[in-house]
């Protein structure tokens, strides 16, 4: 907190609006556990992707036309005529996937190391809110090119709200602004797709604020006890994150430049046709696990509720997990359960992309049941009965244990 600027201009500003000091504290001398692994890079990568999406999105909206008769052609205009338009559009489309990749890794890192536990419940909640906003934004963005998958994805997902008893139908009509997905729907989706990323920015600021209030978790799950345990964020983690960013960008660029349509679906290069549904509708890959849960229930309302419930239960996680130890590193049983849960989520993703036929229906149902069993039953039970491994007394000690060579050097 000891920010004492020497530059007179900075001093002048900061004594009136302490924003520079705030940024300095957040990015420079924020005391960070010294033992963060590369799994802690994905938060800042998600931040970078949010910026990439907003910048490319603003560019695309300069050339895009939100009208059912022109949307598809305007996207092709971007791809063919706008200077570097193909780059912007592929960056935005693949960027969405990359954003979800890093966010999913970020979430699973939190699950593994117990980052949702007290006092980080609000931090966890804000993260889930960001996740929900991302899903809404990505869904509406996918509708904008007005291809076949855009149109039928929009139809299927908006129809989910029709499952709500009594008012369902009115809500769907209200969402559409008509009696089917049409021009009013496209226009409002464009408007909201432009708005929501800035809402995400707001929640991200709260997320970082909460993080800096409670401090970062770390692989041991033990709080920082004294100065020895922590290092300033800059330069240690700035440069570590930059290296992580470099590796990540190489992967991003491999998709962007050499397989830009790999994660997309060919049907979305067919202009939307309200009279013909494609043979096999699938959402984008990042929605597949939830799509699998939706389809696992042979009842409209039940499926919709379970799908939203799959995210809702995550909000209760800090209270469902009773263990006093955070990190799975010291929780032998939870560690195994974690990997099974991850496997379960991957199975759900796989099933979500398959047609609704046996054996995928059965596998999907088992995986769905297990998803909830893990969170609602196994997690509380394991927390109560599990015997954890001995915890190191401090982060420094854990670091020294990990590096026998360093220890020897210290002894010598």
């Amino acid at each position, binding site marked *: 907190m000891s920010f004492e600027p020497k530059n007179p201009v900075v001093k002048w500003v900061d004594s009136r609006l302490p924003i520079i000091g705030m940024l300095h504290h957040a990015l420079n001398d924020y005391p960070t556990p010294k033992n963060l692994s590369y799994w802690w890079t994905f938060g800042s990568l998600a931040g970078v992707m949010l910026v990439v999406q907003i*910048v490319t999105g603003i*560019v695309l909206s*300069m*050339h895009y036309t939100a009208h059912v008769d022109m949307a598809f052609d305007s996207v092709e*205009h971007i791809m*063919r*005529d*706008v*200077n*570097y*338009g193909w*780059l*912007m559009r592929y960056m935005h489309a693949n960027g969405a996937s990359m954003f979800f990749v890093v966010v999913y890794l970020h979430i699973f890192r939190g699950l593994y190391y117990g980052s949702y536990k007290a006092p980080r419940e609000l931090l966890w909640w804000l993260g889930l809110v960001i996740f929900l906003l991302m899903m809404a934004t990505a869904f509406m963005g996918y509708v904008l090119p007005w291809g076949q998958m855009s149109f039928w994805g929009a139809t299927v997902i908006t129809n989910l709200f029709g499952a709500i008893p009594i008012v369902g139908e009115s809500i769907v009509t209200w969402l559409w602004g008509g009696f089917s997905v049409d021009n009013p729907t496209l226009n409002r989706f464009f408007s909201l797709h432009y708005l929501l990323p800035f809402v995400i920015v707001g929640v991200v600021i709260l997320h970082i604020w909460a993080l800096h209030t409670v401090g970062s978790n770390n692989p041991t799950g033990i709080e920082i006890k004294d100065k020895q345990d922590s290092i300033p964020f800059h330069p240690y983690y700035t440069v570590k994150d930059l290296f992580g960013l470099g590796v990540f960008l190489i992967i991003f660029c491999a998709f962007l430049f050499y397989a830009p349509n790999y994660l997309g679906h060919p049907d979305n290069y067919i202009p939307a046709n309200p009279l013909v549904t494609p043979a096999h509708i699938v959402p984008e890959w990042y929605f597949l696990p939830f799509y699998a849960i939706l389809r696992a229930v042979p009842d409209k309302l039940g499926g919709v509720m379970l799908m939203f419930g799959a995210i809702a239960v995550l909000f209760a996680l800090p209270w469902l997990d009773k263990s006093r130890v955070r990190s799975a590193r010291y929780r032998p049983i939870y560690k195994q359960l974690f990997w099974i849960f991850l496997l379960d989520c991957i199975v759900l993703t796989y099933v979500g992309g398959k047609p609704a036929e046996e054996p995928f229906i059965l596998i999907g149902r088992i995986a769905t049941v297990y998803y909830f069993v893990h969170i609602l039953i196994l997690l509380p039970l394991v927390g109560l009965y599990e015997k954890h491994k001995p915890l190191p007394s401090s982060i420094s000690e854990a670091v020294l244990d990990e590096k026998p060579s360093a220890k020897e050097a210290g002894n010598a």
Partner: protein
Amino acid sequence: MTTTTPVEEDGVKRRDFLYIATGGIGAVGTAMAIWPFVDQMNPSADVLALSSTEVDLGAIEVGSEITAVWQGKPVFIRHRTADEIKAANSVDLETLPDPQADTDRAVKPEWLIMVGVCTHLGCVPLKESGDFNGWFCPCHGSHYDTSGRIRKGPAPLNLAVPPYSFIDDKTVKIG
């Protein structure tokens, strides 16, 4: 500690070089990455392809003019009278803010073709008005003569002449 100073100094130098190289290459990369985001706002390929317009002159009487559209801008095409041509040619070029002979502004003297955008701040001037019986820009009071040259007011330059050629006696291609 003091005994190792020379080695450390060397280390510091190598380290500084590494930092400067990384920072420098990073800055170059960032600058190159920004260019596509800037260039995307320049005219796109389809806009550049639409750069010429053909206009039929047959219906324009002597002493009247029409406004054609070229690249989204108004283009004045005036069938000048003998008096107007005479007035345009009887000016001492030395006295003009932007000296230009009328013969340099019109391929055929009877046809004056120019972009109808005031060179001050982009308004469209009114025809057959102003102190010189040419064009007058109502926005900030620039007066142009019968050759479209600036004579009075804040505009710095004459009305621009677009590239054009006569396909035949009755048709002109602008652009």
